[in-house]
């Protein structure tokens, strides 16, 4: 029962923060992706960095359970699927998590996104045997690996570098990148602000 309580508390916090950083706002997503307003990208980089530093720092201090890590398998389909998700993310302004939050926040287009998503997931469920047979789901580079070797972890490392120190360093790198990234990279044509009445 306590796991249900945690789901409610962490899930609600996640939904609220996604709203407040603008991740469930398609305007903010496409201003990030067309490089005109990178504040959301800075938030995301800072979030990955913060999470990484706390997790690996906590592991080194013995405060964080290494066993809670859950590393997904690497295979060619991860890249292909990433390309598809990226294209749809830009076109619609939503990804799976932010789409459901946007739906709950009253955005009507998000309802169509979620409906399309349910159909897309169903289409994958039906086509899964073909992907499996294609070999594109076969693991590459060791499969479920971390970049370094994390002490006490059940996952292997891509390299023999100490995974906890590497995680801490990469985490700090993400934080530095968040601060270094400018708020805007390109300027595009502005729309007319005052249409003739």
């Amino acid at each position: 029962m306590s796991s249900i309580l945690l789901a409610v508390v962490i899930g609600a916090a996640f939904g609220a923060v996604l709203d407040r950083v603008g991740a469930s706002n398609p305007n903010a997503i496409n201003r990030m992706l067309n490089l005109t307003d990178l504040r959301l990208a800075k938030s995301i980089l800072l979030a990955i960095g913060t999470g990484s530093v706390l997790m690996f720092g906590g592991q080194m201090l013995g405060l964080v359970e290494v066993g809670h890590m859950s590393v997904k398998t690497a295979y060619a389909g991860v890249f292909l699927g990433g390309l598809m998700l990226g294209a749809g993310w830009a076109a619609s302004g939503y990804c799976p998590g932010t789409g459901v939050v946007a739906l709950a926040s009253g955005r009507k287009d998000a309802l169509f996104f979620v409906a399309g998503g349910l159909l897309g997931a169903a289409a994958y469920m039906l086509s899964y045997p073909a992907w499996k047979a294609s070999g594109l789901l076969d693991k590459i580079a060791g499969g479920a690996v971390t970049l370094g070797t994390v002490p006490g972890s059940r996952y292997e490392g891509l390299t023999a570098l100490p995974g906890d120190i590497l995680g801490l360093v990469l985490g700090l790198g993400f934080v530095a990148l968040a601060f270094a990234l400018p708020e805007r990279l390109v300027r595009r044509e502005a729309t007319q602000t005052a249409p003739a009445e």
Partner: protein
Amino acid sequence: MSLNWKVGGLLLGLVFFAAVLLVKPIGVSTQFVIVDGIIGDLVNPDLVTQTDDGFTSTNAYLAKSGGKYAKSVANPLNYSFIFVLAMMLGGFLSVLARGGIGQSERSMPELWRANFGDNAVKRYAVAFLGGFVVLYGARLAGGCTSGHMMSGMMQTALSGYIFAAGAFAAAIPVSILMFRKEA
């Protein structure tokens, strides 16, 4: 209203960390499969069935990995499913607390309107097709922005980096080509 990027990023990082500390990394896109499975099982009760040591399905995807998805379809009141419902509640309350989203923005985003006009059907069609491609891609990849990119890169998972490379390699050019005007 919106948080500044530093406070927002810090809070977002704390939520991802809390999830790993207390339970497991955040992921969302699997739950689209679970909802499909629940709907499918209502239409055809033979889709998910109980076995001696768990659950299985006539659908190979639901049956894979020892029937773990089939089990979630049979018992949806589990952590990951409730998590997504709670996300919706949290997002809803957050929007409510900041005064809601305006009517015109609710029907379509202003940046879309500036680039493609007021035709709602066009926006809904693209949102629907976008949703289809996003979830098909997420299931092919085995995760989405939260599971692969955020949780994965945070844990230094190789798969998370591969996913993020693919996602941005497509998302940035598509967005630059589609959204030429600012709003």
